[in-house]
């Protein structure tokens, strides 16, 4: 199953794995659980070494991808998998901002991340680079869809064998967007949490590199690049407030780790950042724990249109709640109807077509502004993590139909007039 383990480069900065609970450390192996407390493991770095070698200039001179931040990523060799992942646009919003009443709103648009149009390409690029270093020849994942797309695509690029596990009821675009890369796809009859549990058992016995199980400490570090890029794109400064979706809670907490590492290494000035999170009401164990002031998560059984973030038993849920409390942020949920409206609002005001997770985040952004929990002057960054073309089912019936006409001028003119009338009626309805 495995090949020889790669030689560690002199420039590698990561030193060991440490438990998120208790003072336990581990070697840099494909493991994700503390044997003593069963808590998740996290990668530790030699920050002095990073500070001595990395400057804004060295980063800016690096590749136009996540690998410009390589010193902050847990890879040991020079041979990284670079498929152009990262450095997605940070768009200054005018129309959505005006609609919401915000003065400094930015959209981090990972709906156009490469190669598979979601933020998952960041974590997978790191995980598969590390998988190769650790000698794995077969890689795998438990996925709600986006991760399967990304793992299959980047494994194809890297020439790794790939077997992915997804819930059987995923959107067609997410399934097709995996199958095209020709991995083995296991569509499991059950929800994501059941898929995840099955994969934990497989990971222990098959000797595969599961990007979000035994490689999870390395994989999740890739999400820090969403923090690094925003800081760099804002002109080497931190925002006041970020709003991001919460599924497992990993992305949400790693954005903070990214900002704090930049502070620690002298790349940006320190300042308080507020972290707010978005969940779908039909799967909101973290939002519920936050609202009820709990420091533990009660798992739920997901029932929402936002399948990509439907994790009922989130691995980093407790850390997400802690982070919102520590930073004066909020974790809020949105109904399926609000999620659809969120998708449409972002599309109509900014020309960005996001999937259900992005709809959730926009809906929650709107709620937080309306509740006075985001001030108009705050520099706010909203994270759009996936592409709407993958979840077309979600908006079927909620958008208009094309006007079918004859290839004749008068047919067009009649249809155009009718369209104008319909639009006026729409406006009248709004005015009433």
């Amino acid at each position, binding site marked *: 199953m495995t090949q020889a383990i790669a030689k560690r480069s002199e420039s590698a900065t990561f030193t060991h794995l440490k438990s998120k*609970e208790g003072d336990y450390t581990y070697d840099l192996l494909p493991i*994700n*659980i*503390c*044997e*003593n*407390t*069963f*808590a*998740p493991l996290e990668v530790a770095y030699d920050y002095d070494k990073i500070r001595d070698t990395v400057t804004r200039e060295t980063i800016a001179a690096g590749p136009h991808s996540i690998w410009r931040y390589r010193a902050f990523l847990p890879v040991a060799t020079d041979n990284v998998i670079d498929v152009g992942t990262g450095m997605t646009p940070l768009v200054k919003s005018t129309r959505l901002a005006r609609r919401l009443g915000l003065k400094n709103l930015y959209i981090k648009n990972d709906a156009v991340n490469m190669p598979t149009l979601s933020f998952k390409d960041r974590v997978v690029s790191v995980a598969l680079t590390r998988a190769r270093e650790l000698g794995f020849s077969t890689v795998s994942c*438990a996925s709600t869809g986006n991760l399967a797309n990304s793992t299959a695509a980047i494994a194809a690029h890297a020439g790794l064998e790939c077997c992915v596990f997804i819930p059987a009821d995923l959107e067609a675009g997410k399934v097709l967007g995996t199958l095209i890369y020709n991995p083995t796809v296991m569509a499991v009859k059950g929800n*994501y*949490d*059941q898929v*995840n*549990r099955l*994969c*934990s058992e497989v990971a*222990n016995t098959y000797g595969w590199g*599961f990007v*979000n*199980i035994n490689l*999870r400490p390395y994989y999740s570090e890739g999400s820090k690049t969403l923090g690094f890029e925003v800081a760099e794109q804002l002109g080497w400064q931190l925002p006041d407030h970020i709003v991001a979706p919460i*599924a*497992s*809670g*990993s992305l949400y907490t790693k954005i903070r780790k990214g900002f704090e590492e930049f502070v620690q290494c002298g790349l940006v000035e320190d300042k308080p950042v507020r972290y707010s999170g978005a969940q779908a009401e039909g799967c909101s164990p973290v939002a519920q724990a936050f609202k009820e002031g709990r420091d*533990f998560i*009660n*798992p739920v*059984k997901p029932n929402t249109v936002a399948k990509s973030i439907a*994790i009922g*038993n*989130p*691995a*980093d849920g*407790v850390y997400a709640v802690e982070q919102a409390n520590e930073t004066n942020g909020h974790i809020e949920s949105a109904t399926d109807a609000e999620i659809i409206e969120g998708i449409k609002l972002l599309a109509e005001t900014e020309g960005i077509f996001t999937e259900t997770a992005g709809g959730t985040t926009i809906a929650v952004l709107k709620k937080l502004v309306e509740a006075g929990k985001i001030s108009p002057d705050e520099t706010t960054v909203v994270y759009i993590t996936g592409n709407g073309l993958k979840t077309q089912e979600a908006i079927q019936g909620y958008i208009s139909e094309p006007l079918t006409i004859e290839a004749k001028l008068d047919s067009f003119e009649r249809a155009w007039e009718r369209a104008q009338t319909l639009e006026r009626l729409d406006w009248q309805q709004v005015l009433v």
Partner: protein
Amino acid sequence: MAIKVLVPTPLQKFTNNQAVIETTGGTINEMIDQLETACPGIKARICDESGKPRRFLNLYVNSEDIRFLDGPETALTDGDEVSIVPAVAGG
């Protein structure tokens, strides 16, 4: 009555490297006590100082998370299968 317990790798040092242990117990709590008798030291790893299962440990009875049942008081019957699954990953 026999309960089958699936033991994860990090706990197998207490079970002579056995992945499956047969034990008894009318509830999850009793099952953990029985397990401790057969495999001394294992309870301190499964439970925290207050005696409750650690927050990162997931216990399932026949594939259902005990947090959807009656927690550590969940009743067990002959032939039940209990899985101990450390730290959920995923996401």
